[in-house]
């Protein structure tokens, strides 16, 4: 059984007992524990079930590479699935539950998959669920979806908050082990701005656990001193609990700081996502131990040797009373020695090497430990817990020589440098034969903006596995990095570590090397996804040669741990099966994030009210107070209608239309784009920008204009007013202002930079109100201050003045067909002016109206709307707007595009109006059917509806749309398809349904 030892534990505080629960059981731990350590201390080795076979799963590792010990953490608004217990800091009241089992962790029905495992080989899904085709959607997929996924997505709103922050540094050092600390010391002393990140809560990495001695001091003391020295440097920032997730172009790094995971509910942000820009990045990310592939290596109690050592030394937890160590290298002996020194039994060290030799081997011998050289594990026995191991000759086929009773197995297959961050931006790897691992190739680093190396690796992450080599490497790499940054490193000697002389390791990919198929189908590579040696070999037999394909076919390395333990072993097995060298087979691609980053951190502050910016007009508060129903228009929120008590939105829109046509409507038109264009060349510039002529517009007058892109397609429209000799004011569509302003600046800066024109986007300087209806003039006359008569201010003119004491600019323009004034006032007076209009207009029947009434009224008048009648493939000619296109101008933006033959053809879909024969409203988006079918067997079409409404004025459905040769087909009846099936008949008519002569707007 696993238990808490009476003494030791460098990271725990025995005076601070904490209570937590696992699957409802109340358990105790200490401050400084990880959840995994505390579970082991309570003899909870079984923590989950595997994904495919629902095999019992125990804790394997002690760090972020853990594939098995994933739990649901917390509950309600703080529920987080798939949390790795090995990196979860224990806190009082922590609640955890195990995942992927039913009905319980101890008894799981899904385990039946395990008994049929030989029927569930690699690629099972691909092979099985392909026929019959129609079954996929309705049978296979729903069933597979039921069993898919590890853990359950939380249902409640996240109770925590998250944030992001930007940081900048010369050198980013990732990893707070001895290599990272030493690199930071070198760079810090050279005066570089250094940011040092460590994913754990504590500094120092493995060195204190391994008992290294640095400069004559225990590693832990050296680490404390280094941290103290760095904390004292103003140019160095240290951040613990901060995991560098990804390295991106030009030194951009994302790092996830777990600010309050261990203190939930204390009011601090749970995580903070750092968006770092570094001059250079030094990765001192260490190495991860590899498992060994022997039969039964997935049984709870089989752990990484380094993890066993971590639990004993860091948390005073023994994973078992009797631990067999199995290794192919000397480092595994450290675990045997640590266990023995903690008073625990090590019945045997099973060493695959024939002649192990070295200081650690000698020390183990001296301690009287039994060493089985040239041996391997034939099989681990046990169900939910290891009971014994059967040992065999490593060189043989697995005949059992001896069986050793034990309750834990510590395995060491050698170490793989953590090369993820090196690789994210394209750093290449080379095969290190001595350590049987990939390590960064210094000749092919990821590149920075200047073509130099963006990332340098140091220490174990660079293949310098032993403390002494790691410190020397960190010193060299950091010195080179700061030199490349243009700084001078201070001359100083690298610290010296006393290191045990180690014998060479021996690459062991399968144990024993001649294992039978039966044994190989019990050798797990990927514990979480249940990928075994036999699966990879099967993939190779079926023709998979690329490691990337094999990964996807077998799902090796595709679990939440992304193959941190399984990748190298898996590709070694693949290489063997393909009879190729490992470097030739290569690795899969390392992609960010290094370990999962919660979505909350990626969203940062962007949630709730500030999920995205809402643009509000100066009258927004009034609209809210008066019950407006809003709709988004770009980022603006505009009132769609102002429903009264008991009214539907439809009824409100009808009321607003009728009231505006008969009495007086007020529209908040502040969102309309307003751009000032001024200069000696402004007229010439606008003549290029608009299809019509703006240079001839007299001062004091307005003119409707169209803008096209260079392809000739209609892009925006609006009324242009000539302000003075050199100044025009261009109105754009709501939401089009920024785009059109950028469009103007693009041409002025990049094409006609010698033209003297300045622009300014003054959209938000003004609140704008459309005063519309037969009583419009009356209310303005009542406010008083300027002459708004037909004579003084005729249709399509504008004037400056005051109304009700407010400085205004009044445009006589109409988008509804009624007598209409659009009045611009400084935004800071917008709300007051709007209220004054309502007050003065009360006796004339003033009512606010929203965007839907606006749309209905403009459709009744046959006015087009950008985005309804246009979709980026429509030219003005399609909309019968030839009158707004100058024939005389030699050039304007879009002119050449419109001359392309397919746009100049007569058989385009062109704008007409439609009236249904039965008075109904044509469905939005309906197409006009045509006889026959196209090449794909779909019905032919000859047009589509672009705007369709019920007209409260005409009391029937009206529509505009594009129809093949439309204007030539007046009076013809065509059919629109409907959502329910079938068609609706409509007559082709003039798109101007209301007041064709324009008498009402000209009064």
């Amino acid at each position, binding site marked *: 059984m696993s238990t808490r030892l009476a003494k030791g534990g460098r990271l725990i505080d025995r005076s601070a007992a904490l209570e937590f629960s696992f699957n409802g059981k109340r358990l105790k731990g200490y401050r400084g524990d990880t959840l995994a350590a505390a579970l082991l201390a309570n003899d909870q080795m079984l923590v989950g079930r595997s994904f495919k076979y629902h095999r019992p799963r125990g804790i394997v590792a002690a760090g972020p590479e853990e594939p098995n010990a994933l739990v649901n953490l917390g509950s309600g608004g703080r529920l987080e699935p798939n949390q790795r217990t090995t990196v979860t800091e224990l806190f009082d009241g922590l609640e955890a539950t195990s995942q992927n089992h039913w009905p319980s962790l101890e008894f799981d029905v899904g385990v039946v998959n395990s008994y049929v495992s030989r029927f569930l080989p690699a690629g099972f899904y691909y092979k099985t669920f392909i026929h019959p085709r129609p079954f996929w959607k309705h049978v296979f997929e729903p069933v597979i979806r039921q069993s898919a996924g590890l853990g359950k997505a939380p249902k409640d709103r996240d109770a925590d*908050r998250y*944030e*992001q*922050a*930007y*940081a*900048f540094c010369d050198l980013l050092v990732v990893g707070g082990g001895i290599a990272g600390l030493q690199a930071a010391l070198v760079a810090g002393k050279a005066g570089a*701005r250094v940011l040092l990140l460590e994913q754990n809560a504590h500094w120092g990495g493995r060195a204190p656990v391994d008992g290294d001695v640095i400069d004559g001091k225990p590693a832990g003391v050296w680490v404390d001193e280094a941290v103290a020295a760095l904390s004292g440097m103003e140019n160095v*920032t240290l951040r613990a609990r901060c995991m560098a997730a990804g390295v991106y172009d030009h030194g951009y790094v994302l790092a996830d700081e777990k600010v309050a995971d261990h203190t939930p509910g*204390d*009011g*601090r*942000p749970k995580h*903070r996502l750092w*968006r770092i*820009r570094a001059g250079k990045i030094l990765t001192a990310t260490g190495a991860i131990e590899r498992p060994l592939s022997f039969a039964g290596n997935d049984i709870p109690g089989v752990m990484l040797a380094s993890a066993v050592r971590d639990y004993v030394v860091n948390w005073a937890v023994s994973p078992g009373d009797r631990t067999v160590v199995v290794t192919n290298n000397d480092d595994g002996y450290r675990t045997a020695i640590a266990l023995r020194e903690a008073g625990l039994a090590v019945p045997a060290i099973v060493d695959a090497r024939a002649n192990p030799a070295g200081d650690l081997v000698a020390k183990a011998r001296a301690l009287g430990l039994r060493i089985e050289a040239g041996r391997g594990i034939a099989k681990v026995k046990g169900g939910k817990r290891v009971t014994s191991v059967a040992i065999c000759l490593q060189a043989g086929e697995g005949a059992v020589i001896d069986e050793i009773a034990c309750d834990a197995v510590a395995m060491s297959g050698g170490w793989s440098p953590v090369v993820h961050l090196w690789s994210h931006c394209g750093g290449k790897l080379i095969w290190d034969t001595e350590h049987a691992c990939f390590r960064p190739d210094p000749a092919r680093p990821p590149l920075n903006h200047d073509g130099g190396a963006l990332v340098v690796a140091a220490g174990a992450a660079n293949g310098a596995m032993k403390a002494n080599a790691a410190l020397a490497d960190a010193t060299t790499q950091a010195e080179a990095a700061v030199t490349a940054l243009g700084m001078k490193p201070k001359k100083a000697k690298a610290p010296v570590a006393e290191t045990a002389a180690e014998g060479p390791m021996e690459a062991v990919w399968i144990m024993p090397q001649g294992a039978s198929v039966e044994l190989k189908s019990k050798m797990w590579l990927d514990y979480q996804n249940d990928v075994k040696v036999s699966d990879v070999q099967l993939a190779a037999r079926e023709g998979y040669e690329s490691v990337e394909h094999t990964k996807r076919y077998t799902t090796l390395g595709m679990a939440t741990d992304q193959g941190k333990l399984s990748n190298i072993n898996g590709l070694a097995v693949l290489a063997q099966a393909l009879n190729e060298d490992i470097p030739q087979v290569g690795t899969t691609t390392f992609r960010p994030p290094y370990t999962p980053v919660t979505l909350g951190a990626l969203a940062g*502050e*962007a949630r709730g*009210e*500030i999920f*995205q*910016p*809402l*643009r*509000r*007009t*100066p009258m927004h508060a009034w609209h809210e107070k008066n019950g407006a129903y809003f709709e988004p228009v770009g*980022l*603006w929120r505009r009132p769609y209608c102002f429903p009264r008590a008991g009214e539907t939105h439809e009824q409100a829109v009808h009321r607003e239309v009728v009231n505006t046509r008969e009495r007086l409507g007020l529209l908040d038109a502040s969102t309309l784009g307003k751009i*000032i264009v*001024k*200069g*000696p060349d402004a007229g010439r510039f606008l003549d290029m920008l608009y299809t019509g002529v703006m240079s001839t517009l007299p001062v004091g007058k307005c003119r409707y204009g169209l803008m096209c892109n260079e392809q000739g397609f209609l892009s925006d429209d609006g009324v242009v007013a000539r302000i003075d000799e050199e100044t025009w004011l261009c109105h754009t569509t709501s939401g089009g202002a920024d785009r059109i302003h950028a469009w103007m600046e693009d041409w002025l800066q990049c094409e006609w930079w010698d033209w*003297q024109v*300045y*622009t*300014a986007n*003054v*959209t*938000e*300087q*003004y609140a704008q109100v459309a005063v519309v209806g037969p009583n419009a003039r009356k209310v303005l006359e009542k406010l008083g201050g300027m002459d708004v008569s037909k004579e003084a201010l005729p249709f399509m003119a504008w004037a400056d003045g*005051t109304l009700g*004491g*407010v*400085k205004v600019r009044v445009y006589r323009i109409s988008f509804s067909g009624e007598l209409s004034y659009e009045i611009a006032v*400084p*935004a*800071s*007076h917008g*709300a*007051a*002016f709007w209220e*004054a209009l309502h007050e003065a207009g009360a006796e004339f029947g003033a009512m606010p109206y929203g965007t839907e009434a606006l749309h209905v009224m403009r459709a009744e008048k046959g006015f087009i709307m950008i985005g309804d009648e246009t979709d980026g493939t429509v030219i003005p000619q399609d909309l019968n707007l030839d009158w707004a296109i100058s024939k005389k101008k030699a050039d304007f933006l879009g002119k050449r595009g419109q001359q392309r033959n397919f746009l100049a053809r007569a058989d385009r879909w062109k704008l007409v109006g439609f009236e249904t024969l039965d008075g109904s409203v044509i469905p939005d988006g309906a197409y006009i059917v045509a006889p026959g079918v196209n090449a794909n067997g779909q019905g032919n079409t000859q047009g589509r509806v672009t705007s369709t409404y019920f007209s409260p004025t005409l009391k029937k459905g009206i529509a505009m749309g594009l129809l093949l040769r439309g204007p030539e087909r007046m009076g013809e009846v065509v059919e629109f398809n409907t959502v329910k099936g079938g068609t609706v008949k409509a007559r082709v008519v003039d798109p101007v349904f209301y007041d064709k002569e324009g008498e009402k707007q000209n009064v």
Partner: protein
Amino acid sequence: MSEPVSALNGAVSEGFATIREIGPLGMVTLRCKADVKALPKAIKAAVGTGVPAVRRIVVEGDRACGWMSPDEYLLVMPYAAVPAVLDAVAQAMGKEHHLAVDVSDARAVFRVEGAKAEQVLAKLSPVDFARLEPGELRRTRAAQVAAAFWREGDGFTVVCFRSVARYVFDLLATSAKPGSELS
């Protein structure tokens, strides 16, 4: 005539830094190339400062002139002084090609104050504050919208568009929540 009302009517939020909406504040966009002879005179007449260097703002009492782009300057003044400033610019510039336009109401202005004011902005803008120079006017984005700011007194003055004033205020207030200090 009604009194001018700023976008949030002087909203305040207290956190580890204080966020205050100020204004209405007079602001004029002056577009003019830097080599126009009349420019220094126009700026002097308008706000009493010299021509700011690239990316700088020159503050002179309650007036200022900031460099916005190679042919754009931001003139800051009391709200009521805008018409006089526009007149002064027009007079000084004469027939020179330029554009001066009142943008006071198109903007919202905030003060972010306190010893850790910088940390509030460091959460929202991709700006290296350690390298922000004295008198620097930085145009950038705050989360998802355009913003400009400069160091002034015990903190920063932040300018954004009026329509997103509430969004920016909420951003600043959220970033300044107690317990979320960066150091």
